[in-house]
């Protein structure tokens, strides 16, 4: 069964048609790399795929569930990482991640979370309110979700490499490869070249008026 199935997606923003007739079928272990210039609708496509925006027409199924009709079931194995990081500025890194785990049925102990934070170079910053961290550090807190979510089947990543240093980019790429090898599926956009040792399928969005 395909992990992600999108049929005849049409997207309109402010009555301008961004793209039409997009068909995607991904099975486990596939990486889809979405490219296109600014304003071509990459982010819109990703948001439609995870069910945050409604397409003008078309359907999206994740693991066999229609994402726009049955969000709770379809989003079970889904992890979306968007422009907005989804972490509260007033809570600490640890609190944010604990909360996120409870929200998404992820079993992770405090030690496990602290371990992941340490892996991302945030040792000693676990209990400081996120607003006091730098942009890159905040980004890492958000990225920690990728390390915590063990049993996801689909990652949808929108520009995951922004505001990261070289080391972390390499680490993240390794993490993505590992996830793919373990049978995960990834849809992602990025402005920089992807240096992953893994077959990449490419989807190019054309700018249209």
């Amino acid at each position, binding site marked *: 069964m395909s992990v992600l199935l999108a049929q005849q997606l049409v997207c*309109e*923003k*402010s*009555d*301008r*048609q961004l793209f039409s007739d997009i068909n995607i079928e991904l099975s486990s272990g596939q990486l889809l790399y979405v490219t296109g210039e600014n304003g071509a609708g990459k982010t819109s496509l990703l948001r439609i795929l995870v069910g945050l925006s409604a397409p003008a027409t078309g359907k999206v199924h994740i693991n066999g569930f229609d994402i726009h009709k049955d969000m709770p079931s379809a989003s079970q194995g889904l992890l979306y990482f968007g422009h907005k990081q989804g972490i509260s500025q007033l809570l600490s890194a640890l609190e944010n991640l604990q909360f996120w785990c409870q929200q998404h049925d992820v079993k992770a102990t405090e030690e496990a979370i602290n371990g992941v934070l340490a892996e991302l170079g945030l040792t000693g910053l676990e209990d400081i309110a996120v607003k006091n961290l730098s942009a890159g550090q905040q980004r890492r807190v958000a990225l920690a979700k990728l390390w915590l979510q063990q049993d996801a089947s689909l990652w949808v990543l929108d520009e995951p490499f922004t505001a990261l240093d070289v080391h972390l980019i390499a680490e993240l790429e390794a993490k993505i490869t590992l996830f793919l090898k373990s049978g995960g599926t990834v849809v992602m956009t990025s402005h920089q070249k992807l240096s992953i040792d893994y077959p990449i399928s490419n989807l190019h969005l054309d700018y249209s*008026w």
Partner: protein
Amino acid sequence: MWKWINSFAKPEKAYWLCDVLQNWFAVVATASLVIGIVWGLGFAPSDYQQGDSFRIIYIHVPSAILAMGAYVAMAIAALVGVVWQWRTAFMFMIAIAPVGAVMTFISLFTGSFWGKPMWGTWWIWDARLTSQLILLFLYLGVISLYTAFEDKQQAGKAAGVMAMVGVINIPIIHFSVEWWNTLHQGATITKIGKPSIALEMYWPLLICIVGFATFIGWVTIVRMKNEIIMRDLHRPWVAKRFGGLVDLEAAVANEKDMKGGQ
């Protein structure tokens, strides 16, 4: 049947329907407004209590009833839009909203001009005037919410939610205001079988109601056509209809060639 109805969800088809209906509505509206108002102003007998001031009824009552009716129509359109995702339903909704607001305004100031000679004051906080005033606020809320959004599809959905919340509220508002204060004279034509006003006064009123209703329909159709074109500006059918498409297609084809060649 369902499929046939559903086909009007397409802007192109809806535009065609609007074109067909527009002239009919225009003719009926003009004719019945002229007949009804001339009849009402000159030929209907004057009221034995209120004298000739009662002739305001021929615009006050139709506008008051239809202001409410237009709101309900708007809310139904919103419901259709939300449930079946019809783009045209939202277009209808936003086309009729200003017309309904104007009707509400008309009913308010004619009521005020009628109240001055009858009750001796321009404004009374009586149940019907008050709930009509709130209706005007509800209209303005829907319109301003719609204009606040950049993306008009989003705007339609948002304003649609507000219209539905408002329509659920109308009976509650009506009931609460009635409870709060009853001073207005009893309803004039609620008893359809045996109207409490004379038949000679009743007929022109009915014609006026028809006239106002078709007038609302007419203006709504014109506005809806505007809305359809404005929203579908970038689609081929609009350009095909109003000229200038050929060059665009050539340009696109030209660009496609370029890509094929690279």
